[in-house]
């Protein structure tokens, strides 16, 4: 537990030291959404229909931006070997890193999503569904993406491979997240897709840390 806290503190400290790196994903998120707005006719009502897809894809892409660095910096400066040798199980270390990544990257996007959704013309009744979906979905992106980042950590061109490997794995979360908002927009019950998202999150939370730690160890062999 204290080891997890130590990793959280370190991630926080690093985010404060390298502020531009930390602010990049939310900024990218806003820019992508704005570009979609500019790319369509002014006040096009169809934009509201596409809003969930735009927001979800923008969140996905901006999270991918930082994932590559997640373990690579630690591999390069030798921190990862020390983490491997510590008494704390590597799976716990991986979980702490991934949750830290979500708190610093995913959470700001969740908070930004509501005003941006209103800007895209999403009715205020379906905004809570969107935010709830992103709150459940962005940790999935951090976990699954973090696993792939662990797989590709030692590779010189891992950054190119990362999106291609993450996107098929994240499809279900994307479908349920955007589907929930569309259901809400059509006045249907959005409960079911949100529960599915929660199920995916719980599954990722239990499985991914173990398998990510195996991937990290593989980087040394």
């Amino acid at each position, binding site marked *: 537990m*204290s*080891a997890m*806290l*130590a*990793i959280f*503190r*370190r991630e926080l*400290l*690093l985010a404060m*030291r*390298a502020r531009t790196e930390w602010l990049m994903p939310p900024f990218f998120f806003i820019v992508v959404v704005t570009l979609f707005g500019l790319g369509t006719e002014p006040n096009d009502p169809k934009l509201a229909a596409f809003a969930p897809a735009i927001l979800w894809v923008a969140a996905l892409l901006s999270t991918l931006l930082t994932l590559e660095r997640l373990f690579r*910096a*630690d591999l*390069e*400066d*030798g*921190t990862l*070997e*020390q*983490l*491997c*040798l*510590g*008494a*704390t199980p590597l799976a716990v270390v991986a979980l702490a890193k991934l949750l830290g990544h979500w708190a610093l990257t995913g959470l700001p996007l969740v908070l930004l999503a509501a005003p941006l959704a209103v800007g895209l013309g999403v009715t205020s009744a379906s905004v809570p569904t969107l935010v709830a979906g992103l709150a459940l979905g962005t940790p999935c992106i951090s976990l699954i993406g973090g696993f792939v980042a662990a797989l590709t950590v030692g590779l010189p061109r891992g950054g190119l491979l990362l999106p291609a490997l993450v996107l098929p794995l994240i499809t279900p979360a994307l479908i349920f997240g955007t589907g929930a908002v569309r259901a809400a927009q059509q006045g249907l019950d959005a409960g079911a897709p949100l529960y599915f998202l929660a199920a995916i999150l719980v599954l990722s939370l239990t499985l991914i840390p173990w398998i990510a730690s195996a991937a990290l160890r593989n980087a*040394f*062999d």
Partner: protein
Amino acid sequence: MHLRGANGAGKSSLLEVLAGLRRPAAGVLRRNPDPLPLHWVGHRNALNPHLSAVENLRFWCEFNGQAVQRVAPALDRLALPAGARRRAVRTLSAGQKRRTALARLVLAPRPLWLLDEPLDGLDVDGIATFAGLLSEHLKGGGIAVVTSHQALPKDLPAVREWTLQR
């Protein structure tokens, strides 16, 4: 134990296998069910360049469940100047970084030290400091496996030298 050998002979790889970081390419490694607690100093310093020396060592203390009060004495022991302790590690010289990495050895007593080229970047003073540290560890009954392409400092107790051939 002092491991020597030409570049590429496999000193670092052997050390990584001993630490349990890497699996041997062939053969079986039998693991002690109750392994000795060990300190590992690889050829990379395990210091984040954006954090200061103190912050880096504090993290390792917290991660390993040691008291953070030990950081300052450890850096004193390695004679890292006060002015260098609060600066980001990326601004330090190679020798200062190495001293900070070696300060981890002092944070907690552990019976087994695995050190990969610990003398890299150290100046004459630094080597002397390290020699003092190592001989104290050995006199206290500790074990150390050290790779180094240069000769280890004299007056160390019970050094056995192994040379790896390609």
